[in-house]
């Protein structure tokens, strides 16, 4: 179970002249600060999948980066099983498996070495890393290319190894930032299947996406963020009930574009 309460994060604007036209018009720009995330709330229970929706620049990635402890929130709480991990980022790192959309692999290491490295960084011993890699290789169908250098992998292979690397330490919560962006249909299916496996294993999953068909297929709850604020929080049924028939319409309703 993971709960996010009143999360906020602002960035200092170093050079106001460099901001894009859109950023200059954004109401979140206040003086020297850009309040990227102002008030984000949601929660995800055991065995649930939460879809995080929002237009580009809404603050999804910033929110997920705070969840992963890469960024430190200015205020708010992130509770994993009741423990506040904002104060203890190392705990967050142990409990969360994070995969960002723009992630890469160390090209000169093989897929196995990439996964091993992060297993070791998580303090796992060689035996448990090996067992886990075997398990993940079965699940994600990695065995044919796991021992080759990852610089020669296809996008799909890279994504599979990245997923394995993100969950090598058996995290309590899995956070995925646009995991299917830029993938072909087969690779996308691998990611979707993997999320379903996690669901079966009762691991809560939070993922951001722009594909509403994925939301329909996978999610139990939906959170919509716009301009750094939670605009909608609820289960999939009440989200689709916001408009007749189409999830796209529901989404536009929540951000007030209808």
């Amino acid at each position, binding site marked *: 179970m993971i709960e996010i309460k009143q999360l906020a994060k602002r960035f200092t604007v*170093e050079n106001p002249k460099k901001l894009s036209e859109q950023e200059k018009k954004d109401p979140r720009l206040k003086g020297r600060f850009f309040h990227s995330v102002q008030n984000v709330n949601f929660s995800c229970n055991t065995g649930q999948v939460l879809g995080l929706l929002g237009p580009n620049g809404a603050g999804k990635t910033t929110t997920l980066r705070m969840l992963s402890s*890469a960024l430190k929130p200015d205020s708010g709480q992130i509770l994993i099983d009741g423990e506040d991990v904002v104060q203890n980022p190392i705990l967050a790192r142990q409990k969360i498996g*994070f995969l960002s959309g723009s992630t890469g692999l160390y*090209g000169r290491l093989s897929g196995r070495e990439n996964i091993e490295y992060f297993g070791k*960084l998580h303090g796992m011993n060689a035996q448990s890393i090996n067992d886990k890699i075997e398990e993940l290789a079965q699940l994600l169908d990695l065995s044919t290319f796991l021992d080759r250098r990852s610089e020669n992998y296809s996008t799909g292979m890279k994504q599979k190894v990245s997923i394995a690397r993100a969950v090598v330490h058996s995290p309590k919560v899995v956070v995925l930032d646009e995991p299917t962006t830029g993938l072909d249909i087969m690779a996308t299916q691998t990611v979707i299947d993997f999320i379903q496996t996690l669901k079966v294993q009762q691991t809560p999953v939070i993922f951001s996406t722009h594909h509403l068909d994925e939301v329909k297929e996978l999610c139990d709850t939906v959170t919509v963020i716009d301009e750094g604020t939670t605009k909608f929080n609820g289960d999939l049924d009440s989200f689709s009930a916001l408009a007749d028939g189409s999830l796209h319409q529901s989404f536009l309703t929540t951000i007030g574009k209808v």
Partner: protein
Amino acid sequence: MWLVFRKEIKELLRDRKTLFFMIALPLLLFPLIFGGVAYFSGKAIEKAQTKTLNYAIIGAENAPILSAKIAEVDDLSQVNTDLQSGNETGIKALITSETVDFVLVIPATFSDDILSVGQNTLTLYLNDAGLNMVQRRLNKIIDNIAESNRDQAFITLGISEEIQKGLLEPILVDKVSTADKRENIGEKIGGLIPYIIFILCLQGAMLPATDIGAGEKERGTLETLLISPIPRNQLVMGKFFTIAFAGVTSAMVTVGSLFVWGVVLSQGMAIELITEFMGAISAVDFLLMFAMLVPIVAIFAAVLLSMSIYAKSFKEAQGYMTPLVFIVIIPIILAMLPGIKLEGIYAWVPLMNVALAIKELIKGTMDYMALIPIFLSTTAIAGLLIAFCIYWFNREKVLFR
């Protein structure tokens, strides 16, 4: 920390491009450069010495002995001319058109009897801009005649051999150097060694530094690394040691190659001199030199890592690092200048003081007590820079630019 170090080294060893620049290039390139320069300059000098030169003499009849001696030489070939000594334009045209390499003008007043005419002046026309040995080759002949003329004059005047010496060189200064061979050679090459080693360390550390800072950002692996449960300072130190290790290894490989190839190319001729010189430097001095290098390499590694992690891409990182080479070169070049000693203000200029101390150690004239403040101040700077690097790695603004 060592986990990060081991992984970075493993990646480094698998990177053919970096390895090539770090190891293969110094192993092969330096002998090629030095050997090439030595070969071609040797060729050029040999050619200038043995090439047959065409010449013309104006007023040969004024100095028959001299003219005959010049005509005797095999690789000088006379071209006849009816130009007169006053016709400078004609003489110049003769040389410009490459009909002759030089023209010697002997005045009508020329005489072998010094006592009657005093000093004789010959005029030598030649194109002196390029490499040529005209004057040296000519002097060999002229000096002989001049000397015999002089001896003849002394005999005529009846001057004893002792007085002759006094007349030729009234006061002779006999120089006795108190510097031994080591100090002598040390002064000449001692400044060069820290220069080579510093620059090599910096260059060798640069490629891996771009790779493990900006490279991680560019490939998208940095974020994942930052959210793994390893304390940030250990992460920084792992990367820091990789860069420092690469810098030292690259410098040592290059110096080793330089040394080995130097011995090979000089075909053992200089080996006695080198072994004698190296033998004079005690093991303690070698150790001290190495110890002085440790904080220097640490400074380089910390600065490079800070630059690299700040940069958004490989290209940006290289842009930051190139001016660093120039900044580092200045104090070391100053230390190479003759006459600059490890005293006063120079003892407090970072990098320069270490370069000077290494020079003193090579010369064997080091005041060992002076090493302590240099070592401590350099170590303090290195420590501060490492601390800055760790602080830098904790800044969200640096990591997510």
